[in-house]
């Protein structure tokens, strides 16, 4: 299959769609949890306290003299007033800005943030026109975060959903313990990226440091440049047409598609030699079942 159209994907059953999107390495067994999206249970995917906001209602504020707590309180106050597009000026590397936003919002940060930027979010679209420190997007559940410059280590740690994008390079341990979603890195990534990855996908357009995908349980890593060294139980896999189609679509979406296309990407998956789900004691099996 050379490519799959969106219309065709919509027609597919869940399992067929998952395979069509290249999730062939994610056959989930044992203790893995997989919550399918059920269109009939839509109300469960919004939070009752989430404010109604209007994307066309836009405001901005200068955060240079504010603490992180004050910035976050101001975001919530503005959302309660219905502002759906909020611009933060002069953040000056503050930590934990924009965390825990659980509803739709356009958040634009004009400058750089420190640690834990926009972590624990579920829904917002975030654009950071600067750099971020460690653990940007940690535990993000849905939405998008696009970082215009570089990012620190543990970018997207424990990511659960959504798209987390760094247009520049990121530090070490990118996507450590990620459980879903997509991480896209326009430049290079450091050592131990994808460490203990459990699900989701990571695209690195540049080079990857040593111990890539070390002890990964599942998920897929695509690397456009050189891989210094693979980690324990991380193995190359064949890049198939579905991978190429998905890579192209994702990279075009964020303006990161290389001129030479995606054929040169290396696909890394779990060798699954470290798995021991099938070796549970009978008593443990009972608990799980």
């Amino acid at each position, binding site marked *: 299959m050379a490519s799959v159209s969106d219309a065709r994907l919509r027609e597919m059953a869940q399992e067929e769609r998952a395979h069509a999107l290249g999730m062939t390495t994610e056959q989930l067994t044992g203790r893995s949890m997989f919550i399918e999206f059920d269109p009939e249970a839509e109300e469960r995917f919004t939070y009752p306290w989430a404010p109604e906001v209007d994307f066309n209602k836009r405001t901005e504020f200068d955060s240079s003299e504010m603490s992180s707590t004050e910035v976050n309180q101001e975001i919530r106050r503005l959302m309660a007033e219905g502002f759906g597009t909020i611009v933060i000026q002069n953040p000056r590397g503050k930590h934990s800005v924009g965390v825990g936003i659980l509803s739709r919002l356009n958040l634009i940060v004009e400058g750089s943030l420190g640690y834990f930027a926009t972590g624990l979010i579920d829904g917002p679209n975030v654009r950071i026109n600067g750099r971020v420190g460690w653990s940007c997007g940690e535990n993000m559940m849905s939405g998008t975060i696009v970082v215009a410059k570089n990012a620190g280590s543990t970018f997207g740690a424990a990511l659960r959903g959504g798209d987390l994008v760094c247009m520049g390079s990121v530090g*070490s341990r990118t996507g450590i313990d990620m459980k879903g979603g997509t991480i896209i890195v326009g430049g290079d990534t450091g050592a131990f990226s994808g460490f203990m990855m459990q699900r989701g996908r990571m695209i690195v357009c540049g080079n990857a440091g040593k111990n890539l995908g070390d002890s990964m349980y599942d998920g897929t890593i695509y690397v456009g440049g050189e891989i210094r060294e693979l980690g324990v139980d991380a193995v190359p896999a064949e890049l198939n047409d579905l991978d190429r189609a998905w890579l192209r679509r994702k990279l075009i979406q964020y303006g990161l598609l290389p001129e030479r296309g995606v054929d040169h990407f290396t696909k890394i998956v779990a060798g699954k030699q470290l798995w021991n789900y099938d070796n549970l004691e009978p008593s443990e099996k009972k608990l799980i079942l």
Partner: protein
Amino acid sequence: MCGIAGIIHRGKMSNVGGEMTRMLRALKHRGPDSTGLAVYGPPHPGDYVMRLKVAEHEDIDRGRGIKERIKERVERVERILEEHGVQIHSKEFATPYALRYVLRHEGDKEAIARAIEEVDGVEILSLGNNLELIKDLGDAIVVADAYKLHEFEGTHAIGHTRMATESDVDIRSAHPYWAFPYNDVSVVHNGQITNYWLMRREMERKGHRFMSNCDSELLAVYTAHNLAGGMTLEESLRQSIGEIDGVFTYLVATRDQLGMAKDTMAAKPLVLYESDDLIALASEEVAIRAILPQEIDTYDPYDEEIRVWQV
């Protein structure tokens, strides 16, 4: 968790005392126990600046008869200087327990330093043509106020805010460490060195002295040993990646250089800004923003990365 910072101006003097104070103030949340700065001012041709402490900070409040003991220790230090033919150009008490001397001497500095440190309760914090090393309990503002660092002009500086984990809250365990007896070399470190005792015993067998049980001091002694053996700073930093176990990021400053090294796991943070005339690096970006509020490009150095910059 500790905070480290460094700044180097290429080709000019600047208010590095004030800049480093602002950077360390921004890192206070990483370690409120003590603060230290190694600032490199203009060279004193023919002269040496010696910073030393003659008591611990807490001795002043707790020690009975401490004033008499301090007076006696200072007299003994000055007798040693006299015996070695050292001229004292100036002397000032920065605090009741910390002194700054400007000295003139042409002979063996190490012999003098070793003799001074034989005096009970006395520790040389730094000795050099450019280096002035200040460290004390409290945050950056407290220390900068006490030692009048806000206006200090120089070319480069490193600094540290300490959260004590494996050794005491005292000046002896505070950073930076002077690379005794190597003039003008200082070190700050964030991390844990797991082969500390092994390496320390090796260094002690080679004749080096340790004043504390803080693992960071090992990096200063190790660097001093390597430089004394003819290594360049870059060679010493690179060798340390293989020989020092643990998780660490550390900065080394010499008379005219600033260097950094990051361990094989890249487990300790460092953010770097580099331009043609200024390099600033710190555990967190917020420290760099304290002196460069405008939008700039920064990045995290990778595992095993070594960098050295010239003044």
